[in-house]
């Protein structure tokens, strides 16, 4: 187990216990800035933790970031850990991040699908879904990125429990999804929602379930363009951006389609690097470069949120 956030190895992949221990260390080291909230439990009973970075008050306008909803996308959880440390290191030093946190809270869910993540470490490195049992099928799990109440059951998701894109029996059937839905609704003041996946090197905005353009299409496109430019400035990693359906493929029941329809205008989903050479087995020496470049894009989106309240 890590002994402190300073000696924690950010350039290695870690187990669920190690990441949860890291969260406790981070909270203990920064009690006035970071707190840990449990928003629910997973199907197998693991706690679903969110780190809250806040300088004051409750239910202030907020930014949500989640990593690891697809458990095998290990570079996302690893990047989430790095982001958490970056936030505490930057507050009070980086004027831009400081002003963001003086105006907004940040919520960060590092392991959004803990059952799946534990399973990738113990039984099947390529596990993507949740671990819920499907009645009447021998196949386990639901794709949590097809389980949201936005075009649920439409094209781009499977009704077959054995498929990697199985949508589940009904919207929000997965506890991991429902926990976020409940949190977002009860909070009521989330302005930006960023869900982080890998790989493919994309920054996407709604919609995925319909070809209809989002009402804020032009603004979202402009933000994505600026964020991708910021990201590419560090290591020249090439990203594409656009709506989900026009940039990659049709997908119904996706996270950010739901958040956008809830009124969270700045809804984005990332597909982090690896240029497609290693798939979900991105070498650990690329964790920090990936996190560093992604951070620049996150900052661009967070700065825009700060400067363009709605």
């Amino acid at each position, binding site marked *: 187990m890590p002994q402190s956030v300073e000696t924690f190895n950010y350039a290695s992949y870690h187990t669920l216990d190690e990441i949860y221990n890291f969260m406790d260390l981070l909270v203990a080291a920064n009690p006035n800035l970071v707190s840990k909230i449990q928003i629910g439990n997973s199907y197998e009973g693991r706690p679903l933790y969110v780190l809250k970075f806040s300088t004051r008050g409750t239910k202030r306008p907020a930014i949500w970031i989640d990593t690891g909803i697809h458990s095998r996308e290990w570079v996302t959880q690893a990047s989430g850990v790095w982001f958490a440390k970056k936030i505490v290191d930057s507050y009070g030093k980086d004027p831009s991040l400081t002003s963001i946190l003086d105006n907004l809270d940040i919520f960060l869910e590092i392991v959004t699908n803990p059952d799946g993540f534990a399973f990738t470490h113990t*039984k099947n*490195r390529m596990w993507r879904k949740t671990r819920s049992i499907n009645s009447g099928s021998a196949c386990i799990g639901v794709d949590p990125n097809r389980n949201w109440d936005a075009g649920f059951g439409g094209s781009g998701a499977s009704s077959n429990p054995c498929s990697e894109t199985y949508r589940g029996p009904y919207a929000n059937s997965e506890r991991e999804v429902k926990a976020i839905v409940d949190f977002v609704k009860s909070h009521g003041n989330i302005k930006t929602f960023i869900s982080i996946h890998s790989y493919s090197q994309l920054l996407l905005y709604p919609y995925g379930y319909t070809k209809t353009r989002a009402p804020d299409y032009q603004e979202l496109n402009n933000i994505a363009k600026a964020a991708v430019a910021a990201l590419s400035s560090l290591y020249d990693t090439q990203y*594409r951006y656009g709506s989900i359906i026009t940039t*990659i*493929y049709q997908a119904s029941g996706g996270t950010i389609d739901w958040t956008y329809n809830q009124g969270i205008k700045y809804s984005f989903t990332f597909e982090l690097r690896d240029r497609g*050479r290693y*798939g979900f*087995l991105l070498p650990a020496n690329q964790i920090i470069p990936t996190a560093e470049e992604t951070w620049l894009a996150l900052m661009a989106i967070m700065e825009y949120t700060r400067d363009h309240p709605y």
Partner: protein
Amino acid sequence: KETFVGNQVLRIFVANEADVEKVKELEELQELQLDFWRGPGGQDVPTDVRVPFASLQAVKIFLESSGIRYSILIDDLQTLVDEEQTQMIRQHF
């Protein structure tokens, strides 16, 4: 513990909508136990699919007979998994 010995990840390049439909047909064949890492989408984004060793011949013949171009992205997935595991253990010590 599930292993991926002999599993390959193929990158499929579609040239037109007909190719996309062919690849979607492939996706429907549950007995092949394919794991689509990306796609099948449009012509701009290649499709990446993990193919178990037992299905490799069938998939490659399907693609070649359909005139769909592909390359091998990962030759043996288990080798990469083993490398990752070794690296994690080394880092932890």
